[in-house]
């Protein structure tokens, strides 16, 4: 056994020390990180939803970590240590085949959208490659009283039966709705968080003023930018053709507000969001998120102008200064 002891025993001792240093000790220290301000534990239903999320491996495609990088700003403010106090097992993830979900409760507050998307993602996002979770739903002849069937688009619905969520689906959607980043104390949260000039890639910061200068104020707008912003922020509900989904999300095509020359309401809806909207005599139960915190005046103007000039709409275009004026108004 002479040489076995130093080689095998020695290397194992060295490894045990390194494992403590790099695994156990950081684990002990970081397990003590207290919850950040506004970070709350989940309710029973939300916890149950989190278990559904874990059991079905959602985090193999969706991260829950926003990095202090420009490209992650669309997902929320950079994640902070205090955000993870109640998150065991951790769900940071290692791949973003789908978008980050850290702040999805704010970015997509409509549970109706979430249900349709969960049942078949391609019903609302045609290019999506997420699996259908239709096995988290029941197909029944008639919904029980008090249960609202999922307003699926015609192509995905059966004429004879309706689709209602199972308890697991309800829990999962409740969990997704709970994923809301508490804002940081400082206002810099929205504009990028931890200052790290050398980390910030120049591309996005440089492109914004450059493309803005292409569009002289008041005369036209950057159509490509407007289309891209619409795709990133609006088309999941209102759809690429602007027609929304009947019974779920209102159409923007030929909509009175969008075609009204007085743009105040249009801008306000984009900035502040909307609940229980009454459009064309129908009340839409799903909520639209506010974009005031995530989009600049110029970006809101681009989106509004894109909507006002697409799908046969012909509303009067707006400029960033109008958006700034609307933003300044008390809510």
């Amino acid at each position, binding site marked *: 056994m002479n040489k076995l002891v130093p080689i095998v025993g020695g290397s194992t001792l060295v490894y045990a020390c390194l494992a403590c240093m790099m695994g156990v000790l950081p684990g002990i220290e970081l397990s003590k990180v207290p919850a950040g301000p506004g970070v709350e534990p989940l309710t029973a239903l939300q916890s149950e939803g989190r278990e559904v999320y874990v059991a079905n491996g959602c985090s193999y495609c969706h991260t829950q970590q926003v990095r202090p990088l420009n490209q992650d700003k*669309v997902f929320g403010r950079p994640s902070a240590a205090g955000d993870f106090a109640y998150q065991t097992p951790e769900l940071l993830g290692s791949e973003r085949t789908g978008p980050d979900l850290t702040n999805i409760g704010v970015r997509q507050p409509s549970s109706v959208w979430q249900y349709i998307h969960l049942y078949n993602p391609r019903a609302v996002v045609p290019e999506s490659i997420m699996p259908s979770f239709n096995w988290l739903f029941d197909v029944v002849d008639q919904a029980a009283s008090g249960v609202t069937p999922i307003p699926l688009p015609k192509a995905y619905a059966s004429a004879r039966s309706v689709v209602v969520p199972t308890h697991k689906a309800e829990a999962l959607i409740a969990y997704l709705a709970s994923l809301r980043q508490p804002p940081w104390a400082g206002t810099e949260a929205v504009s990028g968080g931890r200052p790290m000039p050398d980390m910030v890639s120049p591309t996005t910061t440089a492109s914004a003023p450059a493309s803005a200068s292409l569009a002289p104020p008041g005369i036209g707008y950057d159509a490509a930018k407007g289309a891209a912003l619409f795709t990133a922020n609006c088309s999941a509900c209102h759809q690429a053709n602007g027609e929304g989904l009947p019974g779920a999300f209102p159409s923007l095509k030929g909509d009175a507000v969008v075609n009204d020359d007085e743009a105040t309401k249009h801008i306000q809806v984009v900035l502040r969001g909307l609940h229980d909207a009454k459009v064309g005599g129908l009340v839409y139960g799903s909520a639209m998120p506010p974009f005031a915190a995530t989009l600049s005046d110029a970006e809101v103007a681009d989106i509004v102008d894109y909507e006002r000039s697409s799908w046969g709409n012909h509303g009067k275009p707006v400029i960033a200064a109008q958006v700034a004026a609307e933003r300044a108004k008390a809510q």
Partner: protein
Amino acid sequence: MQTEFTAEHSHLSERDNRALISVFSAYTVTATLWLLFATGVGLLMAFKFGAPEFGPGAWLTFGRLRPIHTNATFYGFASIALVGLGYYVAARSSGAKLYSATLAWAGLVLFNLAALAGTIALDLGYIDGDLEYREWPWWIRLIFLAALVVTAWNLIGTVARRSSDDIYLSNWYIIGGTLWTCIIAVVAIVPWYQYGLGQVAVSGFYMHNAVGMWFTPLALGIIYYTLPKLLNRPIYSYALGVFAFWTNLLFYPIIGAHHFEFSPLPWWLQTIAIVFSVAMLVPVWGGSSNFLLTMRGRTSDMVHSYPLMFIFVAVMSYLIGSTQGTLEAFRSLQEVWHLTNFTVGHSHLTMYGIIVFAIWGGIYALLPVATGKQASKLGMALHFWMALVGCFIYVTSLSVGGTIQGLDWVHGLPFIQSVVDMQGYYVWRGVGGLLMFLSHTVFGWNVWRMCYGPGAVASPLESLRAEEAVA
């Protein structure tokens, strides 16, 4: 140091010999079954990127198959195959019989039991968090730990009976890797320091160490034995091998946090991980140059020996894949590549390119010597080329696609654009994956031939090598 090579098993009884051979064969056969299962699942998943409704329902949903694929590959296929090879190398290089064939069989049952129970649990949705490579419920991981302890005990007992004073380098790696992995498994299971961000730190440590302190040392141990055997010449520098052993041990455990760059883990922890990722070039370049210098001047032999070709690919993947890993750790490159499919390409270049090719090289080199039965040259050729070309297509498509995906994000395009832009690359990944899977079915056939087939006549060079190795 070369005494171990001449100290052969002549004094061992026929019965001990048979016991070792049947252990080696049984580990190889069950490992092969796990390979076919795990990569069959992988292929199904690859199709899902192009056709998300392909394979519907809860049991075939992507999020459940993903951990089944990785865990079955790691702990079903690769672990069992490497332990089988490890037993053979430990016994042969020590000129000793197995310490206990019974323990080896018990270990095999435990490994298979863990992999089977883990697979079923994951498919039913019983999962200990989406924590990469430790998703099996903790009690199933205890079964795996028991298998590791049994294996370590048995390997140490075998090497303790060696006929010479020195312990051949292969055994350092094989026994070391097994004992270190026992520690990794314990660190991963104990829950008291795994809350919130604390668990993130443990995940970083675990997901990297489970790969690099288990599969890599065992694969290197196999190469250190197989390569000199196949070439009938000593390893270029024994001292360099020892140096790589200790530097790998010191540097590797520190780099796990590079899986969580830009996360809320302490910035200094991430920085240390990056610094030591660079330091890893020392053991990687040391080890791979040692292998390449051992092969130097013998390329003509390589063309005639598929075992050597497999080992050569493993060595080149070790050099390229691990160097790529160092580059990936830099923040400037992580900014683009992190969270994209580039990392999936990297993990296949390393896990498949290094570990799996080393396993195949080892099995093709040593199993025929053990059983006296050969795989056909055509079978090995088909296996080698389909696996190599398939892996090349797989890694290239995901590396290019992953880069585009990352740049899409950097350029601030709508997220869905990165999904659309990946489509073509996903198709190519499926093509590569299909070739890889087909090569595994041929490997299954070859294993059957080497274990149960007729004593086929091999090519002159290979039968010569086999004679040399036995002599």
